[in-house]
């Protein structure tokens, strides 16, 4: 099992600066906390936004995550731990939110609309298509895909963040990619994925 120590590698100067910010934030320095928020808001918001597919809901959830961080700053041990903590809390909150409120439209794979334009000529369209197909996956599988492709984590790191066995993560990834290939292959027959 990979611990949070192994999630990201920062150079020493960056780590020391961030360490200092965490320490100052925990002591009540608002400017230091603001810097931490600015540095990590993209990650937290994107995870929530890609998962929930709703910008305002994603912002709300991200705010809750950072407020939670503010309450738990004294338990953060290092910059690597901070990133790991934010990913973990965001993932779990997103999954809880989706289960609780059923915000995700229950769209089956078959109901995903067919493309109206040639995907090869429009990357934006292909990206949107991929997001919509990923949106049809079960919650945990969806979060596995987001952590894999947004955060570029390897399966062991994803397993650690989601408290999930490594083989389950690998199996989620395999199945999700198979679904994506199948759906997009059928829809965009001429595109070799």
């Amino acid at each position, binding site marked *: 099992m990979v611990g949070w120590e192994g999630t990201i590698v920062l150079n020493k100067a960056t780590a020391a600066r961030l360490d200092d910010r965490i320490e100052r934030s925990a002591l009540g320095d608002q400017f230091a906390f603001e810097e931490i*928020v600015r540095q990590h808001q993209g990650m937290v918001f994107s995870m929530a936004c890609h998962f929930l597919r709703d*910008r305002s809901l994603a912002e709300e959830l991200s705010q809750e995550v950072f407020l939670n961080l503010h309450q738990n700053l004294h*338990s953060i041990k290092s910059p690597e731990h901070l990133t790991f903590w934010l990913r973990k809390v965001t993932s779990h909150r997103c999954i809880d939110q989706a289960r609780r409120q059923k915000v995700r439209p229950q769209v089956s794979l078959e109901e995903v609309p067919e493309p109206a334009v040639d995907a090869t000529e429009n*990357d934006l369209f292909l990206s949107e298509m991929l997001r919509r197909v990923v949106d049809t996956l079960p919650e945990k599988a969806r979060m596995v895909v987001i952590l894999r492709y947004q955060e570029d984590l390897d399966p062991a790191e994803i397993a650690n963040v989601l408290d999930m066995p490594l083989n389950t993560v690998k199996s989620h990834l395999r199945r999700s990619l198979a679904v994506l*290939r199948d759906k997009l292959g059928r829809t965009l027959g001429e595109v070799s994925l």
Partner: protein
Amino acid sequence: MSRLDDELRKAFRREQPSADFTQRLLEQVAKQPLPKARWWQRLGTLFEPPKLRWVAIGVTASLLLAIGAAQYQRLSRVVTEDNNQQQAIGSQPPATSPATPADLDNRNAPIRQDSGGVRPATVVRHTVKPATRRHALVAATQKAQELKAEGEAAKEKVLFALSIASSALSDAQKAVHDDGLNP
């Protein structure tokens, strides 16, 4: 790396929240008080790698001090007891011998009228030879002196150990203090 991987990376690129996101968050943060770490969380920080070494040194030094103090007390008590024993031996009255047959005869003798009705006084005889008593005293004194010397040597050792422990403890305290100032 397949094209699907590339496309997924593009599709799930990081995005930024609205411009006032941080401002709104900080306003909310300002409304809530900064939580204080619980005592067990503070205690937990002592067992993190940089501080752990100094804590271990401090604990070891404290243990040494405690053991040293206990040992010193025990030895002091032994030396005091030995001194008391020695004094007791020195001030003990000479031992008396049991009554001899002559004494018994004297006790059974009839009371003579010319003595005014008074039985003749019993003569007490000391049978412990002075040489034996002196020998016992000398042996006891020698033993007490040996014990005292041993006690003194042990005391010196304990004091030496205490001084080492004390200096280690002060070093550890200084290091922990410095560590706190320059984390």
